[in-house]
């Protein structure tokens, strides 16, 4: 399933990043960081296009030999990046979209939490993210 999930603030620093512990985490940090460029490209290219749920979802950002990276951006320029295992070919587009939707809903809930100051690291995602990461394993 997803091997790494990251939430990135609009100033491009990570609010939340989590990867499966078996892998070298630094590699995922690096991947997420490089994917930010691709996200920015896609956002500026979209410029005049009509935005709806489908366009908030950016789709496959770039594939590597082992992994595929997907992106999603909200209207407040908060980006969600997800890295999935390439060997898992059963993962369909709809499933990725629904995972992003769940992420977006959880992020909205975190924003509305009075104890959360916008811009801090997010502590509350762990449960939901763990369920996403080990869903099919």
């Amino acid at each position: 399933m997803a091997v790494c999930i990251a939430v990135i603030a609009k100033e491009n620093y990570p609010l939340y990043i989590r990867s499966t512990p078996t892998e070298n985490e630094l590699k995922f940090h690096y991947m997420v960081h490089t994917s930010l460029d691709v996200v920015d490209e896609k956002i500026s290219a979209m410029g005049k296009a009509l935005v709806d749920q489908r366009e908030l979802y950016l789709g496959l950002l770039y594939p590597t030999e082992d992994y595929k990276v997907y992106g999603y951006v909200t209207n407040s320029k908060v980006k969600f990046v997800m890295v999935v295992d390439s060997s898992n070919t059963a993962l369909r587009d709809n499933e990725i979209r629904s995972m992003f939707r769940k992420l977006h809903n959880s992020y909205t809930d975190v924003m509305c939490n009075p104890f959360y100051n916008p811009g801090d690291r997010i502590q509350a995602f762990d449960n939901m993210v763990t369920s996403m990461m080990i869903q099919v394993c």
Partner: protein
Amino acid sequence: MADEALFLLLHNEMVSGVYKSAEQGEVENGRCITKLENMGFRVGQGLIERRNTVLLLVDLFRFTKDTARFKDELDIMKFICKDFWTTVFKKQIDNLRTNHQGIYVLQDNKFRLLTQMSAGKQYLEHASKYLAFTCGLIRGGLSNLGIKSIVTAEVSSMPACKFQVMIQKL
């Protein structure tokens, strides 16, 4: 409808609560308005996030036009005047003016939070307390959409009021 009254009454209690605690503490009067405005700011931020998700999930077809990417500030201000105001106050802003150089004036002729107070000049001096939260609300919503601004409000005759938004260009 009961849910409208809920926000109105809660807001009134909030204002009197902040001022009451000011009397007991050593906080000067000016700080109360700032406190209320900051409250509104945080609420505005959360509301905009929620508004984004709800718009998209619930009513994709009707709101597709409205959730078009905000091409510029004017689009964002229009969004605030229509959808945002409708969510909070169940009506739209009556008049939006701009000088196209970063100053927008939102005019509401029947501001929900002031209708219960008076229909003319009575209690005019107290009106600013009740507008501070809404100023913060607008500022918070704009800040999460990427716009830094300063929002002030003025009332010449209740219940009409004007919110002036000054966009800060970095």
